[in-house]
């Protein structure tokens, strides 16, 4: 197992967005977002089209906020190329020169940073992502996962205190994914500020100690993964239940405070559940007592979109 460079303890690396909005014509991509990202691993979670890339690009100095400010340790990010001494960026696009070898690509990154020993730095970065063996091959021959890792190596070559990764785990096989997750976690433990975007909650909660949720361009929730999980579990759920006697079951369900509404349909009983834990314990017991056979119990709104919609409606209450 390779190791990362010595712990980063004296550096800051605090990214701050203050009332940041970004619009394109009449379309608002990011709407009045205020957040502070400090050392450690933060996951930027949201469905596709939520504005995650737009937000990351503003933090990376590749997009000017239409209003508000984006700063790193109090310094403006936009129009400030010196900021890249502190920032490493792994874009989502496969922004890699295919005609260069992995070694040439990472070495060019080290030389562009003006590092005193570029070859040494490139070797260390390639070791870190376990790409040393394949570094003599042209990037165009790499798999998507290998390209991703070589991009990470190029972004890490100058040992930045802030690392921004846009959907870094996309296209990686499970082993590569676990390896990169482990690397990101370790770098966060060393005191670096790491922000990565994802639309998969499980991915985010495995790596990030803190989660920022973005939905439809708005900052919907913020907290550690337990907090986000709890808020997701506490939201009202809609269940569809099919049984041997829907009417009888519906009458019993509406009498219990675990549900707020019960509707009889041709497909079965639709139950609006307000207390998830109570309902899941109650239903089988109730069916047994009523001598009703349960044929199907299925949540109807478990897709990510509805979970995110709930989070944003909860945050605006």
């Amino acid at each position, binding site marked *: 197992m390779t190791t990362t460079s010595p712990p980063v303890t004296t550096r800051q690396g605090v990214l701050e967005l203050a009332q940041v909005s970004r619009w394109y014509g009449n379309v608002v991509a990011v709407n009045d977002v205020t957040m502070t990202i400090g050392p450690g691993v933060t996951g930027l979670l949201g469905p596709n089209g939520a504005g995650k890339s737009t937000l990351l690009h503003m933090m990376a100095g590749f997009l000017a906020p239409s209003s508000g400010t984006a700063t790193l340790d109090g310094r403006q990010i936009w129009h400030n*190329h010196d900021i890249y*001494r502190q920032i490493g960026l792994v874009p989502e*696009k496969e922004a890699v020169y295919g005609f260069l070898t992995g070694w040439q690509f990472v070495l060019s990154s080290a030389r562009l940073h003006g590092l005193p020993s570029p070859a040494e730095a490139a070797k260390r970065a390639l070791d870190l992502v376990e790409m040393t063996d394949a570094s003599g091959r042209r990037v165009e021959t790499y798999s998507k996962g290998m390209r991703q890792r070589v991009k990470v190596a190029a972004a890490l070559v100058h040992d930045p205190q802030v690392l921004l990764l846009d959907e870094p785990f996309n296209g990686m096989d499970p082993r590569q994914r676990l390896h990169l997750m482990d690397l990101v976690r370790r770098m966060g433990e060393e005191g670096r500020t790491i922000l990565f975007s994802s639309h998969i909650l499980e991915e985010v909660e495995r790596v990030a100690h803190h989660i920022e949720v973005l939905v439809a361009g708005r900052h919907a929730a913020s907290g550690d993964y337990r907090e986000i999980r709890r808020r997701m579990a506490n939201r009202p759920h809609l269940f569809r239940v099919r049984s041997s006697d829907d009417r009888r079951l519906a009458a019993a369900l509406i009498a219990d405070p675990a549900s707020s509404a019960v509707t009889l349909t041709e497909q079965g009983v639709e139950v609006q559940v307000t207390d998830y834990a109570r309902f899941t314990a109650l239903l089988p017991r109730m069916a047994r007592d009523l001598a009703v056979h349960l044929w199907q119990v299925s949540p109807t709104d478990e897709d990510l979109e509805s979970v995110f919609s709930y989070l944003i409606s909860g945050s605006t209450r």
Partner: protein
Amino acid sequence: MNTVVADITYRAMLGRKRIWLLVLLPVALVVLAALLRLINGHDEQTAVTLMKSFAIGTMLPLLGLIAGTGVVAPEIEDGTIIHLLSKPISRPVIAVTKFVVAASLVAVFAAVSTYAAAYLLTGSESGVATGFTLGALFGGIAYAAVFLLLGVLTRHAVAVGVIYALVWEGVVGGYVPGARKFSIQQWAQSLADQVSSSPFFSSEVTLGFAVPAMVIVTVGAVVWTGQRLRSLSLTGDE
């Protein structure tokens, strides 16, 4: 000027199939000159016509277009430009480096082939070869700057560039007297005319206008490119 940026850009331009685009027209010019020499023999008038219409009138703007847009537009299109821009290097330095690469490519491919073709037809007679080589050299540099700028201004740089090269430079610049003053092709011919003493050739734009115009256009385009790169935005795929 940044040597790493230059190195990557030269590799992208010369190490791939794109080099054939740069080689094709110069080779065509020299082959055409060789054929004309075989058919017509030593002929100054033919040489001047070939230089004016093909070397300066067609090849030069197209080489400028291939090199000028080629050093930057594909990188913006596929996002690889992020690799250069996410580094502590000032964007104007990147713009100047890209310009130097494009200008050097146009200068080498255009000037060498122009000299070879003119020399095949006239030898060193009346300064035709030297004059047009000089015109191709500096005209090529100006074209490289203009098309570099176009590459950062629009995602349709090649289409706009072809229209500019063929319609403005080819038709308007060639036939509308007033517009000739504002044509890089005419400025290049003005330079050629200073060296050449050929009776078959006279430029309509004075050197006093052509040289400052060339300098202003070249410097202005490179500075503007740097400013555009400073504000280059990524919109994301969302």
